[in-house]
């Protein structure tokens, strides 16, 4: 079950994205990897050497928007979450411009419009640090190797499954199936030659097959009749044998 994996590699030492704005018409952007809008904001705050508890919101919002615009101009698809954050920043910025008295509160008690954002940034920062520690753990772990195959190991390639594997596998089967069914719907009536070919293929693929199984996959009475004739024809003309080990037991079609 080969799944597409994310192509981005992860490296904390990697050059963080930044603008080189030497001249107004020569803006260079070094793209890095941001895991989300909060990550980008943290980066911008760091770049401005600003205090996270006292974010210069106007400046940071401008930088953020500049980045977003650049990403767009470079046709880099942006997750909606980046846009939502842009709106949040603009909203906070406009609130900051209003004199606090407007809300009828004493300045000291008035809630800082930035507070919610600060809380989210702090919370996010915690997990970002945790991610960094996990990364360090994995580096150490990659230096330890476990033993090679030994005799008692099973040789077949096996899968250790989860419920999502079940679902993924099931969907693949269905996708496979839909294609087959669509092909079959196109042909209205099956000819004896086609039926011969189909049954021959099934027997040759499976080695042996229960006669009942063949009939059960037929959709119409006509198909069952054709299948019956086809089986007789195969036994007569080709290396296919019918066996029944007990009276009323299952009848097996076998390739000789």
């Amino acid at each position, binding site marked *: *079950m080969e799944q597409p994996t994310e192509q981005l590699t992860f490296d904390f030492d990697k050059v963080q994205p930044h603008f080189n704005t030497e001249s107004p018409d020569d803006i260079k952007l070094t793209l890095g990897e941001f*895991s*989300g809008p909060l990550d980008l904001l943290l980066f911008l705050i760091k770049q401005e050497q600003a205090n996270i508890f006292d974010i210069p919101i106007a400046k940071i919002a401008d930088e953020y928007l500049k980045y977003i615009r650049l990403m767009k101009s470079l046709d880099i*698809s942006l*997750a*909606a979450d980046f846009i939502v954050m842009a709106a949040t920043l603009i909203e906070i910025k406009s609130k900051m411009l209003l004199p606090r008295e407007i809300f009828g509160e004493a300045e000291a008690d008035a809630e800082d419009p930035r507070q919610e954002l600060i809380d989210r940034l702090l919370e996010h920062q915690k997990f970002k640090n945790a991610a960094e520690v996990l990364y360090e753990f994995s580096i150490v772990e990659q230096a330890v*190797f*476990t*033993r*090679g*195959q*030994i*005799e*008692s190991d*099973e040789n*077949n*390639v*096996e*899968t*250790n*499954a*989860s*419920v*999502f*594997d*079940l*679902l*993924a*596998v*099931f*969907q693949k*089967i*269905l996708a*496979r*199936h839909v294609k*087959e069914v669509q092909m079959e719907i196109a042909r209205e009536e099956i000819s004896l030659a086609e039926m011969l070919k189909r049954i021959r293929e099934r027997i040759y*693929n*499976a080695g042996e*097959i229960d006669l*009942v*199984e063949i*009939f*059960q*996959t037929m959709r119409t009475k006509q198909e069952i009749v054709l299948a019956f004739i086809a089986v007789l024809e195969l036994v007569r003309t080709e290396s296919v044998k019918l066996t029944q080990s007990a009276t009323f037991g299952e009848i097996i079609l076998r390739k000789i």
Partner: protein
Amino acid sequence: MDLAIEEKQPRSIGEIVSIVEALIFVADEPITSKLLAEVLDENRETVESAIENLVREYDGRESGLQIREIAGGWQLGTRTEFHDEVRKFLKTRPNARLSLAALETLAVIAYKQPATIPEILEIRGVQSASAIKTLLDKRLIAAKGRKETVGRPMQYGTSKDFLIQFGLKDLSELPSIEDFEDLTSGSV
């Protein structure tokens, strides 16, 4: 491909013994002293005396393991005295692993239950008899009576063990197609 190891101090014999041990351990097949010498970039005599050291060490401390020469190479294995216990362990080992064929069959049964062999064949497009046997042996599925149609085929459904092994409270906890779409359509 440049796999050269940085220039280092010459290794002590103890270090060479340890690396030889590590390499014999990770190798899938008996590893020759020639190959060991190449990887370590040491001469063959040095490596061979390291192996000798190692063999003596394992014998000396009556380890549960032994370094054996086999098919011209060296291999780590359990000592024959303990084969009873090893065999007992191998039998008790919880084996929740499934082949892809068994997994596919289980998926069909889980989502389409109760399902008959012809129905599973119809969906998977291949014979599933041996996969079904595996699943029955592992008690992940159980027979659920016969279907009242031509041939009265046996129907199969998932078992209680299936719920336990896959960590489900009941069948309604199986991820739905929608859950999966949530994951595949989302962008980061």
